[in-house]
């Protein structure tokens, strides 16, 4: 297969977007194209566009988003497809971009992930996200993503001794990292004592889905991110030779039961483990090769368990690693240097692309204020549903 790499990245400021969905997509796309030096009109080399989004049609009232983006950017007649895979839509779009180039169908692919979450009320948004649950067994009961995360967290607490404070430690770390990311939704230091002290915890950090509290889960954000992918054998010809080629070394994805109650081991995130193993195998790498990781911490318990399932720590030790500072910048396995979903924000379809934007910045040495010195290889885990569809991506400069 052909070598495929990333030569351009773009990212909007996550939070409440001042512009509509399509503008967000184009803003991120143009930043990525400018980063690489890609042109529009007659000088365009992009022959395929993938837009990953979960709810553009439902929430932003834009269907066929990729077609609209291609026209707006004046890169017709590029092929255009919109990809919907729940919150893993972004990583799925990257995987499809990789496959398109590796197979020879395309030479240069623009991948965009985007979501407008804040155009509707909180109740409507919660309902929209919950539509990915099992329709008869979960959704109709009023269950939501925080509900499933609450059920999952209690199981992990009972089995592995994870404490509420461990979730807060992860949250404080990610908020600290986000202070150095100008595109993060929340750039504010969070003090551990303030969100864990029993004397006032119900005021500063109220319960949302017992045992989960407000600081144990991500905010609701708008945003978009973009990557420009090119075949290694076309990089110089297309004028991108001046950019460091961040190679996509491995992609993997796997599924698990839709109905969460039917998982053989309810505390496992099997699709995380299988997708990571697939990506490691394709890359010819092991967890020891990973210098920096972006894990899908829509809920802080997920960062802990994912750090185990991808092989960084033994099962049941992820919370102990967080306590030791192993996952902080300067630790032996830095996780979510961008601020993660917790503080950078989680515009569903944008997240998978945003994670890889952060990894590219790390591997280029451009992650000012949060740089992992000498980082050469990064892993991203993008988690769809409540772990029923997960995508892993490994990028490297080796």
């Amino acid at each position: 297969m052909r070598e495929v790499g990333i030569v351009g990245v773009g990212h909007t400021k996550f939070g409440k977007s001042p512009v509509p969905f399509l503008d967000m997509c184009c803003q991120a796309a143009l930043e990525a194209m400018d980063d690489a030096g890609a042109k529009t009109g007659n000088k365009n080399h992009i022959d395929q566009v993938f837009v990953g989004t979960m709810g553009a049609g439902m929430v932003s009232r834009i269907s066929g988003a990729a077609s609209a983006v291609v026209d707006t950017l004046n890169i017709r007649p590029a092929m255009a497809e919109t990809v919907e895979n729940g919150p893993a839509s972004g990583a799925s779009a990257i995987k499809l971009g990789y496959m398109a180039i590796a197979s020879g169908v395309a030479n240069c692919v623009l991948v965009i992930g985007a979501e407008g979450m804040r155009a509707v009320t909180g109740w409507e948004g919660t309902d929209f996200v919950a539509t990915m649950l099992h329709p008869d067994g979960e959704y109709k009961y009023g269950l939501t993503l925080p509900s499933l995360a609450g059920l999952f967290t209690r199981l992990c607490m009972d089995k592995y001794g994870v404490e509420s404070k461990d979730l807060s430690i992860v949250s404080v770390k990610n908020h600290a990292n986000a202070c150095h990311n100008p595109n993060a939704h929340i750039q504010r230091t969070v003090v551990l004592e303030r969100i864990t002290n029993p004397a006032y915890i119900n005021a500063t950090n109220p319960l949302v889905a017992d045992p989960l509290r407000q600081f144990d889960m991500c905010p609701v954000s708008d945003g978009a991110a973009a990557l420009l992918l090119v075949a290694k054998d076309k990089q110089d010809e297309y004028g991108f030779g001046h950019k460091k080629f961040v190679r996509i070394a491995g992609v993997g994805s796997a599924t698990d039961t839709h109905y969460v109650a039917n998982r053989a081991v309810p505390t496992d995130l099997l699709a995380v483990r299988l997708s990571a193993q697939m990506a490691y195998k394709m890359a010819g790498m092991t967890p020891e090769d990973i210098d920096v990781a972006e894990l899908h911490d829509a809920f802080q318990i997920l960062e802990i368990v994912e750090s185990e399932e991808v092989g960084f720590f033994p099962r049941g030790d992820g919370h102990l690693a967080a306590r030791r500072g192993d996952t902080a910048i300067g630790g032996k396995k830095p996780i979510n240097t961008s601020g993660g979903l917790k503080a950078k924000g989680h515009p569903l379809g944008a997240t998978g692309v945003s994670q890889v934007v952060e990894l590219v910045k790390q591997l280029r040495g451009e992650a000012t204020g949060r740089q992992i010195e000498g980082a050469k290889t990064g892993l991203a885990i993008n988690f769809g549903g409540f772990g029923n569809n997960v995508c892993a991506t490994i990028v490297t400069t080796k």
Partner: protein
Amino acid sequence: MEQMYCYKCKKCGKLHHPRYIVCQNPDCDGREFEQLPLEGKCKLLTWTRVYNLPEGYMCPWLNFGIVEFENGVRATGQIGFDDGIESGMELVSTVGVVKEKVIKYKETVVEPQYGFIFQKA
């Protein structure tokens, strides 16, 4: 529907909940199921109390749990009481309205949805 069911594969006998189209036994390819009542005593495996409910609920919170019935079938549902909920406790299933309204294209309509509401045994 005021009765909840599990579904027994006519080929291998595996019990399922909720309803599937193909048997979930990896060594079976059955597509026909016998519908059997799913009710009675069950054990609470995990639970949560949720305060940010989706569109359509007017109550301040709801309790949810995952249970395992005596026949080994697991199910998710609402818990119908507030005090003394603990993982591992014995419950009994009842069936009631778990949602009053459903969202259809462009409108919300009254259409009661029935499902599990677990009570103290």
